[in-house]
């Protein structure tokens, strides 16, 4: 296994560089320095192809959410660019957003709307105007939300139920890329398991999925590529097959602690 301790020579196991291929999601020297001077993201480069799941691992403040915010153009990069299907997000944000669906850490929908009403609004917002109520029900069942909850207002929903609605909205948008910001955080084991299975099925449909997470076990379970981030940098990036025999937890802890040499 190859690993390096600098951002300039991040371990790259058969992960294409953005200049070499037209990936669905690509970060190219993506850098973000906030107005208060904090460097949140430091020349991050990676890409995610169709039918792949990329898991960004890292502690709080590592830069995972900043990366996702840059893809969503919620903030603009200081340097570099994020691309969705070749579209630079900060230059053509509306076009880029047509190609992407997003599930946040804590999906919050309109509490006075029912699950079906929420789905209808966000599906139409995502440009999908042809769905019927049956389509919505079918997707909700697919994500595991039981039928009796479909016409209930969201204000009584648990976090797991709301996450299911969130992924249902992402499915309905039928975008080629999906961004997930710590989607399994706070879910019970069963809900977390179901969620992961659902992501696998979406990958199998050809979606490019970028997921930030703290959960190294689920990341290893599902991701095709794992990137470990620390202080705004990708300090390790490997394909699943390359780290199959490794103790990922140990690897993660060492990278996070900065003991890069010991890994080698």
């Amino acid at each position, binding site marked *: 296994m190859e690993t390096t301790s600098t951002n300039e020579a991040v371990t790259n196991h058969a992960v294409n560089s953005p200049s070499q291929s037209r990936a669905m999601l690509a970060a190219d020297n993506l850098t973000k320095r906030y107005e208060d001077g904090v460097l949140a993201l430091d020349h991050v480069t990676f890409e995610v192809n169709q039918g792949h799941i990329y898991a960004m691992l890292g502690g709080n403040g590592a830069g995972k959410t900043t990366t996702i915010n840059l893809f969503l153009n*919620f903030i603009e990069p200081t340097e570099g660019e994020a691309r969705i299907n070749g579209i630079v997000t900060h230059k053509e944000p509306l076009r880029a*957003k047509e190609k992407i669906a*997003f599930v946040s850490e804590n*999906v919050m929908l309109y509490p006075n*709307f029912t699950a079906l009403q929420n789905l209808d609004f966000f599906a139409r917002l995502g440009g999908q105007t042809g769905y019927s109520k049956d389509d919505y029900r079918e997707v909700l069942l697919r994500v595991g939300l039981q039928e009796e909850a479909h016409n209930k207002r969201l204000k009584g929903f648990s976090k797991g139920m709301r996450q299911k609605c969130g992924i249902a909205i992402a499915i309905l948008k039928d975008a080629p890329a999906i961004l997930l910001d710590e989607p399994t955080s706070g879910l019970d084991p069963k809900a977390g398991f179901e969620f992961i299975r659902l992501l696998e099925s979406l990958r199998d449909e050809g979606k490019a999925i970028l997921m930030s997470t703290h959960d190294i076990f689920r990341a290893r379970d599902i991701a095709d590529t794992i990137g470990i981030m620390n202080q705004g940098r990708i300090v390790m990036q490997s394909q699943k097959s390359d780290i199959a025999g490794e103790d990922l937890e140990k690897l993660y802890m060492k990278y996070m602690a900065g003991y890069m040499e010991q890994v080698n």
Partner: protein
Amino acid sequence: MLKILIEKELKAIILSPKFSATFSVCAILIVLSVFIGLRDYQAAVAQYETATTLSNQEMREQTSWMSLNTRAYREPDPMQIFVAGVQNDVGRLSSINAFSQIKLENSNYSDEPIFAVFRFIDLTFIVQIVLSLFAILFTYDAINGEREGGTLQLTFANAVPRVQYILAKFIGSWLGLVLPLLIPLLIGLLLLLLFRVPMTGDHWAKLFTLIGASFLYFTFFIALGLLVSALTKRSTTSFMFLLVAWVTLVLIVPRAGVMLAGQITPVPTVAEIDGQREGYAKERWKQHMDALTERWEERNAGLQNLTAEEREAFRDDHSWDWMKEDEEERKLVQRDISEYDRKLNEDLRNRKATQERLGFLLSRFSPASSYQLAAMHLAGTDISIKPEYEDAMRDYRDKFISYREQKQKEEGGGMAGGFRIEFNSDTGMKISGDRDSGAIDVTDVPVFEAPQYRFAAGLLPAMPDFGLLTLYTLLAFAAGFVAFLRYDVR
């Protein structure tokens, strides 16, 4: 996209508890206010008709032109149902006679002070106070609430232009507030028809323009709510800011403007004016009496060397001319006092007008004042109602007195004040009146014509306030728009 966003906004508002609260409060307040206003108006009409009939009857029963007096009454107007303005504070009648000044007396609130304690809630009050609060309630968390709820992030993860989003927020909130207002308003209009209120075309035009002004007024608060919501991260913060802004704009600025104007341009009190008037009249009458005494002394001095018979004959020859001369002098004094009174009134009115202009100018920094003034101008219940009515009543008094004097001349010949005074050296002085001649004929007595408040006449002075309301709304919306373009949706 805009349609989807507006639909969502409207649906979110309709499904929220604040919509049902707004609808309930608006329905109860507006319908009740129109109903009570209607009953008050009907009572005022009945009172007006009874009073004018009684006054006419009293005139018909008079037997002497000398004692012919009357009263002029302020006519109730259907617009007072919606905009009470100052009509409950201004007197309803004034005596019309040669000896007292025109002064509107017996206002509704002076007759029934209990209603002045908790004043009548009209449509203007409901819009100015209640709806502006609801507008804030609808919009204080329009942007930051969605951010706190996480829906803003999810929305902007889609290809949603910010321009359309803020427009949808504005239009959706506006529609959300108009809906609970429209139904009770329609019920109110139906009540007008049901109670057969004599609404002319002018009245309908005024009423619909007033509704337009009301919409414009709460549109400002919607824009203000969006602005503050787009400037703050937390909905609790924006609510607090908006509450402070509301108290300042609706409660403080209008009053502060008027109070400040009172300090800058003081106006004499009614007591001071009355004191000046009485002082001048007393002094003038004293001069007149002194001159009269002097004249009589001079007249008597010429009689010193005459015999009693010659004196009697001389007096018989000259007494009528002397009386005419004295009467002319008396009339001159009366005219002087009236002229002085007129000047005092004019000066008072000019100073009051200056104070009012300044007070209104300062208070117009508040949209609430602009709305209130526009509504009162439209309805004809603004503060000019008092001077306009008093002017009309003064004109009427002049006509009435001329008429009476004319009649006195026609029927009384040498009558002075309704009594016939005859001098005869043989029989001495004889005073007789016309009491025994029966009631006087007053069929052609002038009728008081109340000032007419036409739509165009009310709209013209309301135009600057319409302009200001539009300006305030546009400024608030533009600022909110710019703030939202820079808003961090995370």
